[in-house]
Every structure is written in structure tokens, then in C-alpha cells.
């Protein structure tokens, strides 16, 4: 009865509504409750884990990061020995993951665009070949493909000692089942100037491009930006190299004992992983590219032809910019997939983050909760960074609607 009275009293004053009946206030209350529940969930999860670990007598905390690792790693882009700390081992794994993901993304994009365009080709053979490629690779689980490439790489290549190499003799280029050996560039004094020359050339290339675009807008005159840029990119470092007295030398690999020593080596695990990741992801990217181009209506290119644009310019100025709008968002997902899929490296012995940190470090320290949490956090961060970059790129190529 009292409730009934309340309702009628409220109805008397329509401007003042009870907080319970105000959808906005009610929404805020429930959202606050939800946030509290989530915070409590996380808090109790963490404290529970800590309590349970302590009760079970399992060491916890992040103190292990400062301890000596005591194990060796096959491939490292930063100086690392078995006397380094677990923290450094973590960074070695992180870098190995990032390197394979980055190069994988590069090749996947390249192959993906080529195959995607090939699927639209009017050449029967090219088009069918691209179709077979896409339908085969995207329909076989990646792990199997990785194992296949690893076994394929290993079983085709000879062992270094069976390759007919003279012990001790320097070779420029050698491919065996321990890796692809190439000369290593050894910088000497003044070599960093060459690096600076490359940077200057790239910056100049970009500036010239901007200037040329502005000039073309204003006067209609064109400028050979690409040739000039390429020329700068090649000749500026070359001249620096000659002027500074050729401060680079090459170190060659040679067969010594069991293995090749010296030179620059790409290990078979890396090759197999890169091959598997690139080819697999490229098959998805090819479909995305095809979809993007087909999404641009045929009328657009017809209109461009009617305006007198040549086919090359038509695709560069009319079709591709509109296709990119469709291509980039799903392309981002593929980049994220490739990065995450690189964790399958553990199956073929490539020392990535999961193998080194989530494998060896986890086992030597026994701190599974911390190690796995950190590993997950790293992949999350990598993915969010990739997303952020791609979103920025997307907004910079998005069509400006007038």
C-alpha cells in the first residue's frame, strides 16, 4: 500500500523523478556495481593465487628476474651468455619473437598482394595457380605446415660436413642443415656515417616527395620523385663509404670441426617458421586484397578512363585508395594473427618468447603463474601496439568524404 502511495505522490510532481526510475542514474549505479565486482574479482583472484602458492610452498614474486639464467640460447640479437639474468633471457625471447613477426608480416603482405592480384588476373594459368595456392594453404592447420617446412628444410639440406667443403676454407655462401651462411658485414671506425647517410637519404626522399606534390598541385608540373629518391638512397651511402675510406669488411663462414664458424647465419628453425607464417598468412591476405579490389565498383575505373587517365594511374589514384579502405581493417587482424601464431615456434625449436621464457625459464624457476601472466601480457601489448599503428595508418589513408 505504501508503495502505491509513493507512486501516486511521484506522479503528482512530474519534473522530479525518483532516482530508481531515472534510467541514467540507474545505469550509473549498475555500472559502478559492475566495476566494483570486476575489481573484486581480479583482487580476490590475485590474492587467492598468492595465498594458495604460499600454502603449497611454491615460490612466488618477480625476484627471479635478477637471477643468473644458466642456460644458453641458440639465436640472440642482443649479447647474451649463460651468465646473463632471466630478464635478459626474456628480452632475447621477446626480440626473437618480434623479429620473426616483423619479417613475417613483411613477406606475408608482399606475397599476399601478389597472389591477391594474381587471382584477379585475366591470365588463366596465373589465376588458377593463385586459387590453388590460397585454397591449399589457408585450409591446412598452421602447426602442420610449420612441421612440414621444418622437416622439408632439414631433410633436403646436406649436413655441413657432407657438403664437400674444405675444412677451414672460407665460403661466400653456403646452405646446409645448420643454416644459411652468408658473409657478415663487419663495421670499422667511421662506419656509422654510412648509416647516417642512409637516414639522410630516406628523409630527403620523403621531403622531395612532399615538395613535388605541392608543386604539382600548384603548377601541374611533375617531378621524377622515385628515381631521384632511389638515386639518393643508393649513391649517398656509396659516396660516404668511399669518402670514409671503405670502413666495412666482410667476414666469411668456414667449416671448422662440426660446424660452420663465422659469417652471418639464418638458422633452419627461423627459415621454417618464417616460411610457414608468411605463406599461411599470405593466403588470407590474398583474399582480403581480392575482396578490397572487387569492392571498388567497376564504374569508378570506367569514369577514370573517361577522364583520360591511363590504366596505371587509374589503379594508383582511383582503385587502390578506395580498396585500401576495405583492405586495412581485416589486414590488421591478419598481422595480429601472425604475431600470435609465431608462438607455435616452440614446436620446431625456434627460441621465441614462449620457448625461452614460457618454457625454459618457467621450468627452471617453477613460477608458472608469473611467467605465463607476463607472457600473455607481452602478446597483448604487441597486439595492441600493432592495432594502434594500423589504426593510425588506416586513418591516414581513409577517404576524406566531402
Amino acid at each position, binding site marked *: 500500500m505504501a508503495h502505491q502511495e509513493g507512486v501516486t505522490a511521484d506522479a503528482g510532481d512530474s519534473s522530479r523523478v525518483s532516482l530508481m526510475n531515472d534510467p541514467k542514474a*540507474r*545505469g550509473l549505479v*549498475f*555500472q559502478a*556495481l*559492475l566495476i566494483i*565486482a*570486476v575489481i*573484486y*574479482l581480479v583482487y*580476490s*583472484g590475485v590474492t*587467492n593465487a598468492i595465498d*594458495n*602458492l604460499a*600454502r*603449497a*610452498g*611454491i*615460490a612466488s614474486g618477480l625476484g627471479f628476474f635478477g637471477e643468473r639464467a*644458466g*642456460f*644458453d*640460447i*641458440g639465436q640472440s640479437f642482443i649479447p647474451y651468455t*649463460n651468465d646473463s639474468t632471466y630478464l635478459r633471457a626474456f628480452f632475447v625471447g621477446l626480440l626473437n619473437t618480434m623479429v620473426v613477426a616483423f619479417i613475417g608480416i613483411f613477406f606475408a603482405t608482399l606475397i599476399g598482394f601478389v597472389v591477391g592480384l594474381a587471382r584477379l588476373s585475366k591470365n588463366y594459368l596465373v589465376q588458377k595457380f593463385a586459387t590453388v595456392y590460397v585454397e591449399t594453404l589457408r585450409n591446412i592447420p598452421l602447426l602442420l605446415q610449420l612441421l612440414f617446412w621444418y*622437416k622439408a628444410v*632439414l*631433410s633436403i639440406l646436406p*649436413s655441413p660436413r657432407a657438403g664437400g667443403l674444405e675444412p677451414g676454407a672460407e665460403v661466400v655462401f653456403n646452405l646446409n*642443415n*645448420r643454416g644459411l651462411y652468408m658473409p657478415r658485414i663487419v663495421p670499422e671506425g667511421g662506419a656509422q656515417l654510412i648509416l647516417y647517410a642512409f637516414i639522410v637519404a630516406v628523409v630527403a626522399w620523403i621531403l622531395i616527395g612532399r615538395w613535388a606534390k605541392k608543386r604539382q598541385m600548384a603548377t601541374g608540373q611533375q617531378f621524377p620523385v622515385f628515381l631521384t629518391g632511389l638515386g639518393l638512397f643508393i649513391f649517398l651511402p656509396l659516396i660516404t663509404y668511399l669518402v670514409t675510406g671503405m670502413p666495412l669488411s666482410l667476414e666469411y663462414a668456414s667449416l*671448422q*670441426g*662440426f*660446424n660452420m*664458424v663465422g659469417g652471418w647465419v639464418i638458422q*633452419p*628453425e627461423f627459415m621454417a617458421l618464417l616460411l610457414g607464417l608468411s605463406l599461411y598468412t599470405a593466403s588470407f591476405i590474398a583474399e582480403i586484397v581480392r575482396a578490397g579490389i572487387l569492392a571498388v565498383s567497376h564504374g569508378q575505373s570506367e569514369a577514370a578512363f573517361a577522364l583520360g587517365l591511363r590504366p596505371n594511374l587509374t589503379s594508383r589514384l582511383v582503385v587502390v585508395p578506395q580498396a585500401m579502405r576495405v583492405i586495412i581493417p581485416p589486414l590488421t587482424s591478419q598481422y595480429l594473427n601472425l604475431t600470435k601464431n609465431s608462438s607455435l615456434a*616452440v*614446436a*620446431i*625449436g625456434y*627460441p621465441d618468447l614462449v*620457448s625461452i621464457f614460457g*618454457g*625454459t625459464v*618457467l*621450468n*627452471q*624457476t*617453477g613460477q*608458472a603463474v608469473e611467467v605465463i601472466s607476463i607472457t600473455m601480457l607481452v602478446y597483448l601489448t604487441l597486439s595492441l601496439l600493432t592495432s594502434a599503428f594500423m589504426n593510425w595508418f588506416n586513418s591516414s589513408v581513409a577517404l576524406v568524404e566531402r
Partner: protein
Amino acid sequence: MNNKILSAVVGITAVAGLGATAASAATLDDVKAKGFVQCGVSTGLAGFSAPNDAGDWSGLDVDLCRGVAAAVFGDAKAVKYSPLSAKERFTALQSGEIDVLSRNTTWTMSRDTQLGLNFAGVNYYDGQGFMVRKSLGVNSALQLSGASVCVQTGTTTELNLTDYFKANGMTYNPVVFEKLEEVNAAYDANRCDVYTTDQSGLYSIRLGLSAPDEHMVLPEVISKEPLGPVVRQGDDQWFSIVKWVHFAMLNAEEMGVTSANADEMLGSTDPNVMRLLGKEGTFGEAIGLGNDWAYNVIKQVGNYGEVFERNVGASTPLAIGRGVNALWSKGGLQYAPPLR
């Protein structure tokens, strides 16, 4: 709005659920309730734990699990096996997924003290060794500088390897895999010059290579690898059961009680044998089992010597001698405290 309320409710229930999942201490009660022992074994190491032709698990480590089942249930078959990689094994035990880990696991101080685990004895004394192709012309581990070495992750092997090469001023290139089969395949494909793991493991793995005769195990043993069963810390009763199943098998060998003569021995008047077979005293009741616990272990699984010979001994393809694994009375290290 309804969805938000729902998710909040789900969240709170989940929190309540988390609180309830504290590890239970009485493993024996759990095991009895479910009717079998969940035993963590390797993914396939001939002689220690591997499925045989009939698809049943067999091996030295498997027989310890069967012994525990015989002691608890009087039935050595009441075991279920969880094949685990080196990396997964401790987490599986810590989380309660398995009741006992019997998977050629090396007893080290950090594992014993920092992982919340207890080692219940040593059922095989081992040491780390190296296997190479005979064609390399190597006859000592000291000639291995510069070699590529295949090794499994999450093992003491990985650390011993580093220490050994470092101490001898040699270099090497590690190729690390997660699963035993992957290491085997990579070594067989000549990705590495050297395969390193416990020596018993090397003999076992060699049998599975495409041409076993082309490989040899180098004489150097570079580490101490006492392998034994592991249980969770904080359950002394279960710890005692696993420990004493192993000791009972050792004591049985020492007293000459075998699976063949166990019934006959029931009539023995030797007080040692009477205590072992439960004719005298209440040793089984003291650890929550029947007094015939050790009789069941010996009758159904055998004494340590029988188990050793059956799985890895001279009559098997592994043909490993007793060596340091002989009884203490025969010059070995296997020594069990008296059952009294």
C-alpha cells in the same frame, strides 16, 4: 541492463568459486573415492614409461605407480596415466591433476624446496651423457667443442650442458625443443651433432632412431641425476605411502621375496619377512592402508630387482646393467630403511 546485472552476478559467483578451490590435503581419501591413482608419466621413454605393443603403459616408472595402486586398492591395474612433457609435469602435480609424478624426474634442491613438491625417493640413479654419430669419429665428450646439441626444454639437462661446456672452455650451439619426440626427430634428421640427456634415456632413445647401430653413447657422465617419484608437499600420509612402496620393493629384493614366491613366503617365520608381508605388526594401518599392502605390491608388481630386469635389464633391448642401481649389499646405492 539485464546483461550487466547478469555478468555482475556471474562475476561474483566466479569469485566465490575461486575461494572454494583450495587444494585438498588428503590425497589418499581422494584416490580411494575416485577408485584409481592418477599417475604422471613421460610421453614415451622405452623402459621407463611407454605404451607397449598391447597399448598398456609399462616401464620402471610405471611399475612404481602400479605398486602404489596395489598398495592402496590391492589392484595394480587401478592406475590412469597422464603423459606429460618435461615442461608440464610440475604444474600438473601442483594443480592436483595427478596424484604422483613418476616420470624420470631429477631430484634437485630447488625442485624440492621451491615448487611445493617432495621427492619420495630415488628409483633410478642416473647421470647425463652424450650420444653422437659414430661417423663423427668422436670418442670423448671433451672433443665436442663447436657442436650443435639437441636438448629438451625444462630439464636439468639444459643447465648441466651449459655448465659442462663452460667448465671445459668449449662452445656449442643449443637447439631446444619442448617435446621428446621433436628432439628425437631433429637429431635423427642430423640437425644436431650431439644428443644429450640422462644416459638411460640415451640408450632408450637410440633404439627408436632410424639406424641405432650408427650411434654411440660417449663414456662421460657429466652429472648426478637421481630420478624418483614426486608428490605434493603438505600431505605426509600420501608422501609416506609412495616412499614406502618403493622401500617395500627394495626390502623385498633384499629378503628374496619375489612375485613368484610371495604366497609361499607368507608362511615364513623370519620376523623381517612377516613384518613385510603384514603377518606381524600394523604397518599398513599406520599409513592408512591394509596390512597386506606390501604383499600386494610384491605379488602383483614384483620386487625392485624383478622390476628392473623386466623393464631395462639384460634381457631387454636396453640391456642396462644394475651398476649403481644394485642393492647396497651388492655394491650399489639402492638402500631402504628397515621395515620395523
